[in-house]
């Protein structure tokens, strides 16, 4: 029987990043994916004959350091593309265009305040940036190097100067709405800027907690959180990660579902020694690294009985219900949107912060949003190969769509919601309905089924203060190590979290190699 230094369960982008670093450090690595293709949520799927879409339809924060460490450009990943502008759509066609450093379509005051807003948030995002690519140590810790991480965080914040430090400490936990109201008048602008603080979470503009921190996290990307589509599409990133891993000697096993992490019991405690696949094959390794979400890892693969009582209960109570649905359209031709010359941008349908808040209110009580808010991209404008020639796809994220709908999800519900979404888009595009060849709606429940992802949650668990930093996914498993010897985590369920960033995979590899 073959034996490996490391087996990585799950083939998402963090797992691929982790595999790359481990193989480059000399380890013999096997990576096992349940689906046919590697890439997790970033993978492209044919959702209608000839039409492909990625669930993660654009990038905004993939780590430049990882791209350069792994020399991904030599494997065909080219991130040197312009950021997509955010286009906040307006029913009366007074759209607002938001670029990295400017905004068009708002009052002079708002435009000036935008500069001030951006420079402040950029400053904050820069302060935090180094800590996303770092393990956050345990609080009770005698390791000098670990303690220095805390000192460094404190120092970085302090070195901003007294005023900025105070402002940072005030702002990062602010409800989105309060910050937006402080700076701007334009409803469209406020809603659009709120969007990236909220999407993927169970928060709306008025929710307290840490939406601004989430925004700063997203802003760590090269375009200050603006999305971009690399030449060659998202696939080019996944292909590059796979190709560079192959070059480093990583072995790939696809269409293999891991059913169990094999735990050896001895007088020395518990130790992970291998995995058991759906066809009962057992594969051994010196260490097992889970790239699937923490709930699946500890409850399904390890088994709650193999962890201590408080730990298993903490894992069970992780908040990991997703609230974003994916919506893909196969289009016979490029639709036109009223008052828009070009669709090369990320279009937002969220006219006011209240429209987002009300969308959340429906979901909060177990229904889906009766007036959903959404963002959408036409990826075929950047990567025409995703659809047959002359045809297009539209890829949208819909908020807020619950994982657990009151009474459960039915086909009728999904059809009704699909109609609602198309109606919503049709308010801005008179000909979109005529162009639709096929539509696909993936609720969080569908995402769970399709991608083996608990709760269908992008981030493998809510990215909120109670589940961040040294508490992500929960203490005793927050430094990529787990209570079980030789079992590690490398998924978005770890610090720093989700989004196509690669940091969790990178940090896990560093922790394992050290």
């Amino acid at each position, binding site marked *: 029987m073959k034996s490996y230094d490391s087996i990585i369960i799950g083939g998402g982008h963090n797992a691929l990043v982790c595999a790359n670093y481990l193989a480059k450090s000399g380890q013999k690595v096997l990576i096992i994916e349940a689906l046919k293709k590697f890439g997790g949520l970033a993978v492209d799927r044919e959702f209608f004959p000839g039409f492909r879409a990625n669930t993660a339809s654009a990038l905004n924060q993939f780590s430049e350091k990882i791209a350069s460490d792994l020399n991904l450009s030599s494997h065909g990943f080219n991130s040197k593309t312009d950021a997509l502008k955010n286009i906040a759509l307006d029913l009366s066609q007074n759209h607002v265009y938001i670029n990295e450093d400017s905004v068009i379509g708002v009052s002079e005051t708002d435009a000036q305040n935008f500069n001030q807003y951006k420079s402040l948030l950029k400053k904050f995002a820069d302060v935090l940036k180094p800590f996303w690519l770092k393990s956050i140590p345990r609080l009770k810790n005698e390791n000098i190097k670990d303690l220095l991480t805390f000192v460094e965080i404190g120092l970085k914040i302090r070195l901003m100067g007294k005023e900025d430090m105070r402002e940072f400490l005030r702002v990062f936990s602010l409800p989105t709405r309060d910050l937006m109201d402080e700076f701007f008048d334009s409803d469209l602008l406020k809603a659009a800027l709120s969007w990236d603080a909220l999407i993927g979470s169970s928060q709306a503009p008025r929710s307290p907690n840490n939406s601004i921190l989430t925004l700063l996290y997203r802003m760590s990307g090269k375009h200050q959180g603006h999305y971009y589509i690399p030449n060659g599409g998202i696939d080019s990133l996944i292909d590059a990660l796979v190709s560079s891993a192959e070059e480093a000697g990583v072995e790939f096993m696809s269409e293999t579902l891991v059913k169990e992490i094999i735990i050896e*019991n*001895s*007088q*020395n*405690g*518990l130790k992970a020694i291998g995995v058991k696949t759906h066809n009962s094959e057992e594969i051994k390794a010196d260490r097992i690294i889970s790239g699937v979400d923490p709930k699946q890892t500890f*409850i399904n693969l390890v*088994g*709650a*009985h*193999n*962890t*201590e*009582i*408080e*730990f*298993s*209960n903490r894992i*069970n109570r992780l908040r990991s219900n997703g609230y974003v649905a994916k919506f893909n359209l196969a289009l016979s031709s490029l639709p036109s949107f009223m008052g828009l010359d070009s669709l090369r941008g990320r279009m937002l349908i969220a006219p006011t912060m209240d429209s987002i808040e009300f969308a959340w209110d429906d979901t909060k009580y177990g229904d889906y949003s009766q007036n959903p808010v959404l963002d959408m991209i036409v990826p075929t404008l950047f990567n025409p190969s995703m659809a047959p020639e002359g045809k297009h796809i539209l890829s949208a994220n819909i908020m807020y769509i619950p994982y657990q709908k009151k009474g459960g999800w039915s086909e009728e519900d999904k059809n009704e919601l699909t109609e609602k979404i198309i109606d919503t888009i049709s308010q801005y595009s008179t000909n979109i309905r005529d162009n639709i060849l096929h539509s696909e709606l993936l609720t969080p429940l569908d995402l769970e089924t399709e991608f083996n992802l608990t709760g269908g949650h992008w981030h493998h668990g809510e990215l909120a203060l109670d589940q961040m930093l040294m508490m992500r996914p929960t203490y005793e498993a927050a430094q990529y190590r787990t*209570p079980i010897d030789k079992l590690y985590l490398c998924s978005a369920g770890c610090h720093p979290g989700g989004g196509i960033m690669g940091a969790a995979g990178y940090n896990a590899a560093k922790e394992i190699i050290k």
Partner: protein
Amino acid sequence: MNNHNKFSDERLKLSPFHERQAALNVRDAWSVWNGYKFADYYYDAEYEYFCIRNTCGTYDISPMQKYLIKGKDAESMLNRMVTRDISNLAPNRITYVCWCTNEGRMIDDGTIFKIGANEYMLTCGSPNLAWLKKASFGYSSIEIEDLTDTVAAISLQGPTSFSVLDDMGIAGIENLRPFDFITIEFNNSELTISRTGFTGDLGYELWIEKNSAIALWDALYSAGENYGIQPYGETATNMARLEAGFIMPYMEFNEALKTVHFQHDQTPFELNLGWLVDFKKPIFNGRGALLTDKKNGPTYTLTKLDIEGNKPAEASYIYADEKCTKEIGYVTSAMWSPAVKANIAMAMIKTQHLDDELWVEIYYEKELRQYDKVVRCTKQKKPFWMPERAKLTPPRKY
């Protein structure tokens, strides 16, 4: 509304034995245990204590928490919860266990009865249902039933306890070894008799469906008439258990889940219960923390003390010198022991000072005047009271 029904939910619950016990509670000395009206003593605590040691007595343990745990995963769940290995426990046997938080702090202690392959009864002093539910997460085949309010239980302790049960005609009682139990039919109910107790002497505990409680009481008192049977309460129990070296919640240990201040609770090693911790088991709650505690040595160690003089060293500090300049511990329970004729105590002493001289400063009162004195203590290894008859099978018939 009639005044009597007012706050009826707030009133103390009455034990299934209450009717008989109330009639015998000459002093109306009641306290509370887990919401039940519960006797401190009936007539005179010292008298009751002497009945435990010289004849026999009954102690109502109905308020003790009793959980029936059934299912294919019952053993696995319990074994991961408690520190001791129960996988070798035979049917009709009982084992004393404790369970801890994952930080190794003791939540409670109790006993596990193995009824059958997939059936156990857990008994303990305080409610632990919420903890059992938490501990059951992740197990698919497990059922927990709280028997506390439906099963009556009474402890029969003392040298003549066997004779009482034998005269009641209970077949096979003579073969019951310590920590064995049998189940027989009594008054059309199932009666479980275990050879267990909290006095360190010969004794039994009897468990029966609550509607048969009075019948059981009457049978015991009828058979026990010539064997000096007498109900005893909390005070006498506390005396007997201290002589036997048993720990008491809120005296020797503070239940971890109810402890607010950092490490004001205890680990089993601190309580001298290291023998209950089986590191051969690859997983149980608190394993990692307890390994560290064992390796580094517990901060405190519960120690049995023989103290000079006859003044009980209640709530006293322990010092390493006669001048009382170096405080190294505190007394948890203390009494003048009539059976041993010694001034005994249990104390938490800082482990690193265990081999120092031990002095205790005792405050006492004589007719409203306060006095204090400093006397020497000697460590005791064995329980103060451990008569051979406690373990003898078959026990002696009087």
